[in-house]
């Protein structure tokens, strides 16, 4: 009779879960809330600051064109290329800045770790899809823009199970 009780227990468990709340995150309408403003790195202490590893953000007033990020990426994805910019900064005599190809980037964040001048951070923006491959290449001017994200869904626990509230 162990079989019969087992079958009844399984059926009971199944029926019981008809009343539990759905857990699905309805993605385009809801977006998960991510922690912080994105992954950042503090070169003086050598430790990063927790955050989502999304699209990069480049601070033009801090970038010196040292190519350390491109060198770091060489062994990983070869996604960063240094391109000429029509800007005149005193710390950036060569006037070159990173241009990132998100068709290749693996979002490991090692380029952020490599930057000693607080110039390259990552942000919470992960919706980078584009109709063309060229659209995935972000120029320094595009990387300068701080993305606007509306992410507010969080996992909520209550008596009838967890949901994305």
């Amino acid at each position: 009779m162990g079989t019969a009780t087992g079958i009844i227990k399984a059926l009971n468990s199944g029926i019981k879960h008809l009343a539990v709340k759905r857990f699905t995150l309805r993605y385009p309408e809801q977006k998960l809330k991510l922690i912080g403003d994105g992954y950042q790195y503090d070169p003086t202490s050598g430790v990063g600051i927790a955050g989502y590893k999304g699209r990069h953000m480049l601070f033009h007033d801090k970038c010196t064109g040292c190519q350390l990020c491109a060198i770091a990426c060489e062994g990983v994805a070869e996604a960063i290329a240094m391109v000429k910019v029509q800007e005149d900064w005193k710390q950036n005599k060569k006037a070159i800045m990173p241009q990132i190809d998100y068709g290749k980037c693996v979002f490991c964040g090692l380029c952020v770790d490599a930057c000693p001048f607080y110039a390259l951070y990552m942000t919470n923006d992960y919706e980078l899809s584009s109709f063309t491959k060229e659209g995935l290449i972000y120029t320094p001017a595009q990387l300068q823009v701080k993305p606007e994200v509306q992410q507010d869904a969080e996992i909520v626990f209550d008596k009838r199970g967890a949901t994305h509230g």
Partner: protein
Amino acid sequence: MSALAPKFRFSYFIKSILDNLFWIIILLTLTGIPLVMILLFYLELPVIGGKLLDPYLAFTTLADPSRQIPLLKSLLQTEFFRIAVFPGFGFAALIAAGTIFVERKMLAKLQLRVGPFYCGKVEGILQLMSDGIKLLSKEIIIPAKADKPIFWAAPVLFVATAAAFIALIPAAGGGWVVADVDVGLIAVFAVIGFFPVITVLSSWSANSKFPFIGGIRALHQMVSFEIPLILSGLGVVILTGTLNLTEIVESQDPYWWIIFLPIGAIVFFIAMLAELERIPFDLPEAESEIVAGWLTEFSGMMYGLVQLGSYLKLYAFAALFVVLFLGGWSGPQIWPPFPEEIITEGIQMGPINAQFPGLPLLDQQMLNDVLWFVVKVVGVIFFILLPRGVFPRVRIDLLLHIGWYKLIGLAFVNIFIALGLLYAGVLGPEGIL
């Protein structure tokens, strides 16, 4: 990037629609109306209100809606209506479509997810329709070495057999059944016997390994579970003394056979799951072992037809279970009686006072029967669907073991219970109850 044709012009689009419209009107008037006349000449026309329904009368009813009521009433009595609409194909297809939707939503709820959600605004009720359109628009690919005629015929035969099965199921009292035959139950089992044949034919004709294994599995499974299915139905026949399904239903007043024959009902239910290839007995379609079993090579609407057939079959089996064990359509009268005014005068709808005497096309008793029948069928379908979320698939040797050792044994126990009840004089044609 654009999905439209490169030389798309909106004016051309409008023009093409107008062109089509023009030709449709021309062809309809030139061929359609004469065709209707010819058909009306050959058809045996009903007598409406003492007059034969000729084309003139048919056209005049269009002018006065109240004169259409006798026409509709006579239509409800025709064979065609029974086959195509009410206890037959249309009704079953509607319930099958509902079953598919309920299955997906219920399974999703059990699995803590949403299920179909976006198509049709409200919880995805139009999902099935969109799936159907998708299947219709898909290319039908036939394997190069397939035996083409049989391969083509198999899905059609599958649906046809399922429809034949439905034809034998009575849905309400007063003769609401397509084929009211005296050997109803035997006919049902005879029709069920076609399914393994069709399955094996289709899988063999596909000339492919995985469908072949699936077909052989389906053959094993269906043949071995038909025996307990028939034997467990036998208990009811012993107590009722008839094979006619309508009479079986009428014999269950006021006690349903499930009260006296619970073992038979359980055996019938399990054998039914196996016949339907539902989890936990979906071995012929076990996708992790043999891709999709005997459905592997079907594509497009051929697959859609097989799915339609299998859900029609599901409805038919659920209805058969209701007829045999749950008292069919019998139940307390809960459908409210029609007010006198509706029958004699017509409907009072706001400012419009329509005078349609004799309006309710169907009587109160029949609607009540159908209501109970549908409620019971839906309940049984729920229990057919539930195991899909709860149980894993069994293995072929365990399945055959269940079929040949346990279920047949239990079916015989059920027969002895029925015989005991009969000879003790408790039940049966001359029983106490």
